[in-house]
């Protein structure tokens, strides 16, 4: 019997659970290495070469090169670890987070000022359960 994952149906949301942590371990360890200034410099100087030093899948390496955070989340990345890629480039959390949403960065900023994304319609996968 598999683990009970009642959160798996929530749309647009990936919970960093034990399975995600397992497939993302190498990717996340690469991200953690960027906490050291000398590693940030080496990564930015030659991203491909730096990524090749880490035990990651080719998909994960390409996701980093493309800064495709939704892909990297699916491949086991954790957002606080992935944020260190953006931090290396001086990006804020808002810039990093807004790269994953359907809105543009400006639209996202405006949406947050207007009170954020409504939970309405985003609680359950389509067809799974009615909104209260």
């Amino acid at each position, binding site marked *: 019997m598999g683990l009970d994952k009642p959160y798996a149906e929530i749309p647009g949301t990936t919970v960093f659970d*034990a399975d995600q942590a397992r497939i993302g371990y190498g990717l996340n360890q690469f991200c953690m290495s960027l906490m050291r200034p000398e590693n940030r410099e080496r990564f930015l100087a030659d991203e491909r070469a730096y990524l090749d030093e880490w035990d990651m899948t080719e998909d994960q390496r390409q996701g980093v090169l493309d800064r495709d955070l939704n892909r990297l989340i699916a491949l086991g990345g954790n957002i606080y670890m992935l944020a260190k890629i953006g931090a290396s480039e001086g990006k804020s959390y808002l810039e990093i987070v807004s790269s994953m949403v359907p809105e543009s960065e400006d639209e996202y900023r405006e949406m947050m000022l207007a009170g954020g994304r409504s939970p309405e319609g985003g609680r359950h996968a389509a067809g799974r359960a009615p909104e209260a």
Partner: protein
Amino acid sequence: MARITASVYTSHVPATGVAMDRGRTGEPYWRPLFAGYEASREWISANPPDVVVLVYNDHANAIGLDMIPTFAIGTAARFPVADEGWGPRPVPEVVGHAGLAAHMTQSIIQQDFDLTIANRLPVDHGLTVPLSLMFGQPDRWPCAVVPVAVNVIQYPVPSGRRCLGLGRAIRRAVESFDDDLDVHAWGTGGMSHQLQGPRAGLINRAWDNAFLDRLVADPEGLACVPHVEYVREAGSEGIELVMWLVARGAMADLAGGPPPQVVHRFYHVPASNTAVGHLVLQEAA
């Protein structure tokens, strides 16, 4: 004897730290948020703690994936400020209370909470932003801090009931320490926010405010809320709110005493990607 005198609850959004560090708190975006902490700063200057037991989570800075303690206590004399990837925040190092922390460690483990003991713990924005929000920008922090780090990064995080129970154990530990100390319990993180995926930016004002209501009036009922409700209603990172239950569990009413007094309550959207909530509860005189 040491005693718990109050509990403080606040979000610990990193951007609020940046706003203070760069002198931007007077800008139109930030002014309403910092105005919400003015009453608390006045209150804490009149009711200064000797020690804050500060419940927070590390955000993949001191604690990566090498080892992931569910609950850890910082027993060091000093805690350096972490470099999270942007360089360390320009804030004072955090001074611990190694004597109280050693006592708490022994007491709490003997109450069946299997704490991890952290003697080397760089502290990130989860711990330093609440200090800045409450104390501003002093040259040194005006109190000692015993960090209590909770895993809310890799699921499953501890349950609400477990967090409330840890708070109760913290209260018993503090109250059995011989030194004459006024101790605060602080719970940090939240409120609603989601930092990943297409649903990022989620804010749930109604759920957050119901959480604040229940934290004051019905903490035991609130502690039964399952994780999936936090994720669904308050976003994947809103699950940080379980940490508020640790601080709440340390108050007298959960040990048969009178209910606390609400000194201050504040709610604001947005700070960067996040809803900000803040509550100060003081023990009845």
